[in-house]
């Protein structure tokens, strides 16, 4: 029965180091525990008495920034403990993504500088304009502007290389938080939680405290759902089209009642509406409760994602007109920028959040098993 109390911090010693500061605030929360019912973070805190760097990273990535705990907190400024757990965990979280990213410098650039994302978007589009101008098209619809072969040659590496970088980052994450081999049950629990955004529910379905201060609201959960499911539908449309292309020799363009369009059009609409909603909510939320210094890049990322959805819809709406070529360049250029920036932009949060949910499910499962074997 020993405990490494040397890990404990003085509650009054506010630190500039994101991990040390998050640890200080987590320790105060652990001595209070009033917020236990809001989300998964607080029950996870109560399982420990001292917190290693890996524990802090795990808790930071488990937090969904619902902000319920901030508005309920008796220790927020001007109290000398100056608690702002949503911001402290957000700071530790973005710092961890930068640490895990490969190469790390890119993550810092694209998470702090909105204009860097804008430059990447412009560069992506310019590249596509140039390629469309240079390369011959073949076939119908947008393939007449850029051939299928050219698209595959560009996007296969642009899709796979970022995934590789993300995989490297996730491996570093898993090592740091002390993750164990994953069971199917952990994945089921994690995906179930992510699919419902359970941790933005306020614990009882009343929602979070993002844009209306101490009043609960489900707007952010709904907007995020629109973005997430819209994105997944668009991604599914692309996958289905690939299967149709190679498996069934059914080539684009597809009609409205085809599977790629039935998935892609609603997906695009949801994505655009969701991004617009997220931007509107952000404009009303208190920036002091989010990740410090990341606001501009986070906003730029939402714009980028919305731009991908919007240009995809426009590309479809303007088919068979002279605008197909320019729209194709804008759409594919934005998709290219989006793909390549996935490991270094806010998009990375989805992967790390999921990893944190898997790890949390794993800890809950193994500690329940330990309780049973003790009893």
């Amino acid at each position: 029965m020993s405990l490494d109390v040397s890990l404990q911090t003085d509650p009054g010693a506010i630190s500039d180091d994101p991990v040390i500061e998050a640890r200080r605030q987590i320790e105060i929360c652990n001595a209070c525990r009033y917020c236990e019912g809001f989300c998964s973070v607080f029950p996870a805190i109560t399982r420990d008495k001292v917190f290693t760097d890996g524990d802090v990273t795990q808790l930071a990535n488990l937090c969904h920034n619902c902000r319920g705990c901030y508005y309920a907190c008796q220790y927020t400024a001007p109290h000398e403990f100056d608690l702002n757990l949503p911001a402290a965990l957000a700071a530790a979280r973005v710092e961890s993504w930068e640490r895990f990213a490969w190469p790390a410098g890119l993550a810092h650039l694209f998470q702090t500088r909105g204009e860097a994302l804008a430059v990447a978007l412009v560069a992506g589009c310019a590249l596509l304009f140039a390629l469309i101008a240079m390369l011959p098209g073949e076939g119908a619809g947008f393939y007449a502007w850029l051939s299928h072969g050219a698209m595959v040659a560009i996007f296969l590496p642009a899709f796979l290389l970022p995934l590789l970088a993300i995989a490297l980052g996730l491996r570093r994450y898993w090592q740091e938080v002390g993750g164990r081999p994953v069971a199917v049950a952990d994945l089921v629990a994690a995906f179930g939680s992510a699919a419902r955004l359970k941790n933005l529910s306020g614990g009882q379905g009343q929602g979070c405290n993002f844009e209306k201060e101490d009043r609960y609201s489900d707007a952010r959960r709904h907007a995020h759902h629109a973005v997430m499911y819209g994105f997944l539908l668009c991604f599914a449309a692309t996958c289905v089209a690939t299967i149709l292309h190679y498996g069934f020799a059914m080539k684009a363009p597809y009609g409205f009642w085809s599977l790629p369009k039935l998935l892609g059009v609603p997906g695009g609409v949801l994505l655009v509406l969701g991004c617009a909603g997220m931007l509107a909510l952000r404009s009303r939320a208190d920036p002091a409760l989010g990740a410090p210094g990341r606001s501009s890049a986070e906003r730029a990322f939402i714009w980028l994602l919305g731009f991908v959805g919007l240009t995809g819809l426009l590309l479809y709406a303007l088919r068979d007109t002279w605008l197909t070529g320019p729209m194709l360049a804008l759409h594919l250029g934005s998709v290219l920028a989006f793909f390549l920036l996935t490991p270094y932009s806010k998009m990375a949060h989805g992967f790390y959040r999921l990893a944190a949910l898997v790890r949390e499910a794993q800890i809950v499962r193994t500690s329940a098993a330990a309780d049973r074997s003790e009893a």
Partner: protein
Amino acid sequence: MMKPSSDPLRLQSHEWDIVIAGGGNAALCAAIEGAEAGAKVLILEAAPEVYRGGNSRHTRNFRCMHHGPLGPLVGTYDEDEFWQDLLRVTKGETDEDLARHCIRMSAECLPWMQAHGVRFQPSLAGTLSLDRTNAFFLGGGKALVNAYYLTAQDLGVTVAYDAQVRHVAIDGKRATHLEVEIAGQRIDIAAKAFVLAAGGFQADLDWLARAWGPAARNFLIRGTPYNRGVVLKDMQDQDAQMVGDPTQCHAVAIDGRAPKYDGGIVTRLDCVPFSIVVNKDAKRFYDEGEDVWPKRYAIWGRLVAAQPDQVAYSIIDSRSIDLFMPSVYPPVAADSIGELAVKLGLPAAELAETVAGFNAACRPGRFHPQELDGVATEGLEPAKTNWARPIAEPPFYAYALRPGVTFTYLGLKVDRTARVSGPDGPYDNIWSAGEMMAGSILGQGYMAGTGMTIGTVFGRIAGQEAAKHVA
């Protein structure tokens, strides 16, 4: 977001039905009941908006009578059991009629609270013993206070922050207006009815020192610095009938490094039963293992207050460091008792002697942290009657203890309708609720969640009665 009506002159010229002094749980319950009955209500909260809510913002649960599961509560907690519990902690210093009325009314309060925005959660980790008696607020008392302010706002209640009530102007049996200071400006606010729910005087150190003695200046105040008893004193000066021991306050032993005010729950220390506690002369002064900690923590405030400089030190060894809820302050650690004494500023030889004497008096036995294990010292004065295990395995750890004042007992005497009495019987139009009248029911000791029960029950009653009066 609630915008306080910052213009004092507009507040002054408005015709109010009910004006409430105070902005905590009891005041808000009164305001909501009054507004729902159609009254025009003004809340005068002495604190700025960020610190609104008095001590309610530090609370975490509400004790509630119930038959069968209710909200987050399991089993049954009936009137008689609640009453017996209250009788035990107050040692009879309670008004049975008022207390039983409060207990009975508590049952219907829980659904009312939910209907007015309060959310409950299951018992917190480490508080399972309370899951039958106490309903915990999701997010704690500040979340409850926020929910009530939003509900009050939706009902059209006006709130003035930084509004300190200085005087209740009474003509015969009727209050006519309140003298209020808002942002440095003195104004009179008239109304048809008044609810006084402005708390006790525990944050006024001068008053505490007058009541308790100069030692009180070394006390820490666990809650809001805004409960300075101004309204209470004003009513006392006007010969309102009072209840509760004017010299007493409820104090527990908390971490000696806690902030002077508003440290709240996190400054609690749960290590005493597994430790020896010494004063600044390195001498033990009380049986640390007398009972399980939830039943004893409340007496330690008083015990430490009686020691020189109102400070004590709880000392454990490495075997006990993982046995209690985490403290927010890291322990002072040392590899020897001598080094620990130096770090604490205690006389080293005396501390070594005290520890050695204690260790020599320990007897073998089966140490069991979760129950009264009967592992006691022999031939030691004062004895330690449970968990007496030698302090022998380095590193050694210590926490400083100081008395932390929770609330004071002095209050206004009220009847079942929460109406306040003056020298000639009940006033026509003054009601009181919350800590300001709780001394009638909690005349001594404390029982978790009872303050919020009294505040909710009598806050609601005060609001209803005041609304009836103005209707």
